């Protein structure tokens, strides 16, 4: 059983950051205790998980445990729409990489100097140039298929795998982009375009919500590496509840409880919280650790999507056919005017299912079947992934009124937007409407902030800062005021950019692993 001895490293959370860190530590010969609140889903059960998702979805997803994952959402009060946290995260060995698209980008260099470069947010305590080698290593650790384009950030090493070409449907945008002077290119994916790292090449390209073959990266790959070393003890269904911090700022132990009720105490030389933006902050708040400046839980960020689409009467596409739209653009990433708005990334899409109009349009029976025949394949859309500014009022707190199955206060999440966020979304809407006009779409509709318009990217709450009063961790990701407690993952992001966070999580984790190697040695 875990906890029977002292470890070099105790990691809380077996997702992308925790799994990768465990692999790196064991490769260097360090012993690791890896605690994960969620269950272990065997790799061989992937097909069943996919079937589970396809038949049941919603709250019946296999990784949800109502008592453990309970939360309170106060976002409706602040932004007018609720946030379905449990539909936007995965608790399990592998974390959210068990169920993700696999789109994977680096942040832009300007994102690291958001305040000085763009006049918004704050500067990171590290630069793109400092992180670049770790980005390149992350490409190879995760297995990224990509084709470099001048609009992408500079890189020191080639992609490990050739990128996926644009689809036959994407090609419709190329002449329009040329006419408008927009650069479009295929996005990189953490999906094998050839056999890589012991996993096959993708045989359905991104179409499966849960990858049955393992061709799409999952942190299970790195957890398998860690466990096979014999140095990593993984304890699933084990919820970390308190950090035992001594008066000198040294963590003495982590107190956890298994779902079967068994108490667990883990002692290590170094501790890393990698439990994503909500639970990492919650654990620090429950433990009253790292919050001397009232920064823990603040600056919670997400990527809000602005979705616009319309219909083309003279052309039919092949949405959802095995394949996936891959085109994106960074031409509108930054505004020419400083301080006006955040980043905007465009993604081009054709994927709309007319059968979803079952309830929303009051269509069923033969009328719905006719609607599907008329509409399927005629829809064309553009989505804008938008940057959300760090905002101290957008935060995770402990809810005083509700507790989880162990009696601990549950997280209360409350997203809040600032004026630049509204301007970002407004401008994104204008850009998208113009693109739809240029392509000749009719019945153009736009959903600026709908229930499906979140990226499921939780960032902030434990942000990096040189000044201990402005953040929770320092540039090494060590919690201010402690000597052996670190945070890994997107919760340390000072700003969100408008690009998928996974590769930045991996790069920061590899950088942290190198730092911990020095500490532990």
């Amino acid at each position: 059983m875990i906890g029977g001895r002292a470890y070099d490293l105790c990691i809380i959370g077996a997702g992308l950051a925790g799994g990768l860190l465990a692999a790196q530590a064991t490769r260097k010969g360090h012993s690791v205790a890896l605690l994960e609140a969620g269950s272990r889903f065997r790799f061989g059960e992937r097909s069943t998980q996919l079937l589970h998702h396809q038949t049941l979805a919603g709250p019946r997803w296999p990784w949800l445990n109502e008592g453990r994952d309970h939360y309170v959402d106060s976002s409706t009060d602040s932004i007018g729409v609720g946030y379905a946290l449990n539909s936007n995260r995965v608790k399990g060995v592998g974390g959210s990489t068990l169920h993700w698209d696999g789109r994977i980008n680096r942040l832009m260099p300007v994102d690291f100097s958001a305040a000085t470069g763009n006049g918004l947010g704050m500067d990171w305590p590290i630069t793109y140039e400092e992180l670049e080698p770790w980005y390149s290593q992350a490409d190879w650790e995760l297995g990224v298929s990509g084709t470099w384009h001048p609009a992408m950030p500079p890189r020191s090493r080639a992609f490990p795998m050739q990128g996926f070409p644009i689809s036959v449907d994407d090609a419709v945008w190329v002449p329009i982009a040329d006419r408008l002077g927009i650069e479009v290119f295929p996005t990189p994916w953490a999906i094998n375009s050839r056999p890589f790292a012991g996993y096959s090449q993708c045989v359905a390209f991104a179409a499966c919500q849960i990858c049955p073959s393992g061709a799409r990266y999952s942190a299970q790959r790195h957890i398998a590496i860690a466990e096979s070393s014999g140095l990593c003890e993984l304890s699933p269904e084990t919820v970390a509840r308190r950090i035992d911090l001594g008066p000198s700022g040294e963590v003495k132990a982590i107190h956890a409880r298994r779902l079967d009720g068994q108490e667990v105490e883990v002692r290590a030389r170094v501790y890393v919280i990698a439990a994503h933006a909500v639970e990492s902050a919650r654990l620090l708040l429950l433990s009253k650790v790292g919050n001397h400046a009232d920064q823990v839980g603040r600056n919670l960020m997400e990527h809000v999507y602005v979705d616009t689409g319309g219909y083309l009467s003279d052309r039919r596409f092949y949405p959802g056919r095995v394949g996936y739209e891959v085109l994106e653009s960074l031409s509108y990433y930054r505004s020419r005017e400083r301080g006006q708005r955040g980043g905007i990334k465009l993604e081009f899409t054709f994927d709309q299912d007319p059968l979803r109009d079952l309830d929303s349009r009051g269509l069923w029976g033969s009328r719905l079947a006719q609607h599907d025949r008329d509409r399927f394949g005629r829809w064309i859309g553009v989505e804008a992934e938008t940057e959300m500014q760090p905002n101290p009022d957008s935060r995770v707190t402990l809810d005083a009124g509700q507790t989880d199955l162990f009696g601990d206060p549950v997280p209360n999440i409350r997203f809040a937007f600032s004026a630049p966020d509204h301007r970002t979304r407004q401008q994104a809407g204008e850009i998208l409407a113009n693109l739809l006009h240029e392509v000749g779409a009719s019945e153009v509709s736009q959903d600026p902030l709908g229930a499906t318009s979140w990226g499921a990217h939780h960032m902030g709450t434990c942000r990096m800062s040189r000044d201990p009063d402005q953040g929770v961790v320092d540039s090494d990701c060590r919690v201010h005021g402690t000597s052996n407690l670190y945070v890994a993952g997107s919760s340390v992001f000072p700003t969100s950019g408008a690009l998928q966070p996974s590769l930045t999580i991996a790069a920061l984790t590899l950088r942290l692993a190198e730092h911990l190697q020095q500490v532990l040695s």
Partner: protein
Amino acid sequence: MRISATATPDPKVISRRRFLYGAGALVALVAVVGWLKKSARHSAPGPSGTAAALAPAVAFLGALFGRELSDADRTELTDRLAFAVRVTPGLSADYEVLARQLDRLARDSGGGQFLKASSAQREAIIDRIMRIEPPSLAERAWAHFVRTRKRYYHMRFETVPQLAWLYRHSGVPWRARGYARWQGIPGDWREYTRAGAPYP
């Protein structure tokens, strides 16, 4: 002949009061036995995952999405429903409630079972189910105490959306659109770089 008030009554003679007591007890007994039988029927692990038990839900999905189901469609939907029932406690009861409601509406429209209804009758039944309005606050409170009302709203606003999700994520709509592959069906990933077959 004097009859003493304390005399032992003749057991062969049944007074009116005794008759009424006895009849009342019999009625109560019949009611209790009936209720117990009904409860046992509901709680017994019946053949909930069989094709026969799932046939009404399959037929419902065909009617809901306006599609004449092929044998392949029916087999796939049955398999997926059986999986859903197997991994989710309580779901078979939800499907039974739906099946009873479908049969009740079929009887109301002059037919027998939903499974034996014509396409037009089925569509009319679907129409009635889909037009059920969400419960008001008062109705929701009332449904909290009345199990049949609770089941009624659960059927429309929980079971039907779950079944619709299952249908949309199955191969049935893709086959109808002329697709040969969809999520979870492996093949050549480069297929997306080529034009697909014409739509049916």
